[in-house]
């Protein structure tokens, strides 16, 4: 047995919160989705499960090594099962429209679980990514969440829920891909020469524009563009503009960029829409003689959303590329030159590999950020998971809001974990990690 002084303080705090939350109401029973309800605690309906959870919390701070993540997994499972059981008990005999909403105790226990996983002892940490998802999966498969109000609301939408999640991911990923295609070269320029320092401030400035204002600005422009310009013409303008800016680049790079800027925006509009239609649920239609609107470039919908998201995602990509390249040791660069690398070889063989872990961090930031803010796309009819949030807000049904919000959080966490894993693998492969 450990002495009190050796106890893990974070786990101790988490256990305290976990115990406290057992004294609070977990489920609010509402006669229907809009009416106020009454909070119900866990001890009256499920005393056995509640006691088991309490015992688990009491034991947690004393555990080390594999026992800690194992118990944490069990606590997570217990949390889901307890909430589901209480909700199930309450709904029995109630009408179809009654809802078992989530109350303070449920959320507080989630917070306690999160703190406990963050505060895991170092030797136990590597098992957490295994036991926690496993516990959630078991809870999901056994249907513990099914009686809870957000799940009931979401289930009512059935197929549309999957469609909106798909659309959401399609918008976010097209925006991030575009931000990479534009942001990495811009970051390289900024790192190469002080003349392009404005690239950093520009991408910073773009992020300060409120999204609603941006949508308002884009609406008439994109609407007109979609009506009056055919796909063939747009592609021609982009090709000609890029060629012109390439010519101007030779005499004055800044002038070249000035030309490239509006052309680039047009390319972003078109590219974003096409990319979205390529990966999203809508079919991709390409007819050169048709106006752009046929391909999806309209004042509302995915086109302005993906464009705005691409601009927002630019900052993390540009900054991380810039920082990554700037952090390449001067000695490595000098050695590369001295051994006879051309500037292209130096870039691809030395600078880019050494900067890549940081660039990847930027991509992670951009993706997580974009998955989150893609919810605003619902405001201009582009739908996505924000649609449910908007529906919930408009109808005053807080459980509806959760139908949109919880998957967004889950997707963002998933993307974050995935890219962290890739980053770790990359560092190991480059020999930058023990």
């Amino acid at each position, binding site marked *: 047995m450990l002495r009190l002084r050796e106890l893990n303080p974070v786990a101790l705090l988490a256990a305290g919160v976990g115990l406290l939350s057992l004294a609070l109401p977990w489920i609010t029973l509402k006669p229907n989705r809009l009416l106020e309800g009454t909070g119900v605690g866990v001890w009256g309906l499920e005393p056995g499960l509640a006691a088991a959870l309490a015992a688990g919390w009491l034991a947690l701070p004393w555990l080390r090594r594999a026992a800690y993540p194992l118990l944490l997994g069990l606590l997570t499972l217990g949390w889901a099962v307890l909430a589901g059981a209480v909700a199930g008990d309450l709904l029995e005999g109630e009408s179809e429209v009654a809802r078992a909403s989530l109350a303070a105790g449920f959320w507080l226990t989630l917070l306690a679980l999160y703190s406990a996983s963050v505060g895991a002892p170092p030797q136990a940490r590597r098992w957490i990514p295994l036991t926690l998802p496993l516990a959630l999966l078991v809870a999901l498969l056994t249907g513990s969440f099914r009686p809870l109000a957000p799940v009931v609301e979401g289930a009512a939408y059935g197929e549309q829920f999957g469609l909106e999640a798909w659309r959401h991911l399609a918008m976010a990923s097209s925006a991030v891909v575009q931000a990479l295609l534009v942001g990495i070269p811009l970051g390289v320029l900024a790192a190469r020469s002080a003349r392009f320092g404005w690239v950093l401030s520009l991408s910073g400035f773009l992020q300060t524009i409120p999204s609603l204002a941006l949508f308002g600005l884009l609406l008439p422009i994109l609407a007109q563009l979609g009506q009056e310009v055919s796909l063939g013409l747009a592609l021609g303008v982009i090709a000609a503009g890029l060629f012109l800016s390439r010519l101007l680049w030779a005499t004055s790079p800044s002038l070249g960029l000035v030309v490239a800027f509006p052309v680039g925006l047009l390319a972003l509009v078109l590219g974003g829409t096409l990319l979205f239609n390529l990966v999203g649920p809508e079919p991709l239609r390409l007819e050169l003689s048709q106006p752009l609107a046929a391909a999806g470039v309209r004042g509302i919908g995915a086109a302005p959303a993906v464009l705005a998201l691409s601009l927002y995602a630019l900052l993390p990509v540009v900054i991380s590329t810039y920082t990554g390249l700037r952090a390449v*040791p*001067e*000695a*490595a660069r*000098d*050695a*590369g*030159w*001295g*051994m*006879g*690398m*051309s500037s292209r*070889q130096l870039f691809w063989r*030395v600078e880019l*590999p*050494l900067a890549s872990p940081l660039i990847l961090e930027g991509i992670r930031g951009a993706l997580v950020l974009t998955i989150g803010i893609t919810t605003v796309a619902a405001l201009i009819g582009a739908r996505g998971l924000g649609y449910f949030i908007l529906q919930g807000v408009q109808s005053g049904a807080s459980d509806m809001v959760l139908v949109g919000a919880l998957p967004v959080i889950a997707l963002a966490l998933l993307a974050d974990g995935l890219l962290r894993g890739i980053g770790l693998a990359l560092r190991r492969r*480059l*020999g*930058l990690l023990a």
Partner: protein
Amino acid sequence: MIRFENVVKRYGDFEALRGVSLEVAQGQVVVLLGPSGCGKTTLLRTVNRLVEPSEGTVYLGGEDVRRLKPEELRRGIGYVIQSIGLFPHMSVLENVLVVPRLLGWERSRREARAREMLRLVGLEPAVFASRYPRELSGGQAQRVGLARALAADPAVLLMDEPFGAVDPPTRERLQDEFLRLQADLKKTVLFVTHDLEEAVKLADRICLMNHGKVEQYDEPETLLRDPKTPFVREFIGPSRTLLRLSRIPLKGLIEPLNGKVPAASVPLSAMAREAFSVLLAQGARSVAVTDEQGRAVGQVRLETLLRVASED
């Protein structure tokens, strides 16, 4: 092999090199010596065109270096820098392979060569080839740097304070190994240092620089015995007598043992300075000289050392 002709380098109003003319003979180690900011590194970097002279010409093997593309020129010159500049994302083997790869050598040839180079600098390929620079000690990293510079068998080596970043015992060991390697390889070496002792130990000729000009270009013995300018005298300072002893082999100073063997001893291969240090430390008047088997073959007396040290 390398010839500088009236090389001038200006940065704005500042003149880093103010008309340097110098010739480096093939197979020689020439040390560019001087205080920081004297232009020695700038001069070194004009050879592989990391610095382009404002005036004057640098010849390599009789040819103006500007006639080659910088990349091609550099691939034919070994380059070792103080901070070593190993690529942290490449293994030791990959680091050594860089120039052969740039030159487009075929795989089996370049890998064999890289392993040979690692062995040459005293790193067992089986142990070190797959390690990353992060996992090397300072001395090991510096050896890899040298192996990398030698990989494509360049005739000329440029070394910019290569041993500046390691601790003194390691530095001495690296210097000894460099001399041993150079005796076999006979490269033409341009070597930058600010350490007088290192220069005296390694150089065939020393080029002492100050404020972008050559103060004196001579063999170490001559430089120490006969400083041509006040700056050279001051730079060498009071340790010049001791340093001269470090260039004189013991071999010529040995006298036969007359009966009793002195308690202290130095190896036959040592320099006079080592014998002098032993004498001072022991407070003795003579020291035994031993051969490789440890047998005393003669002695060196303090008076002899004092005499050669003050000779002009």
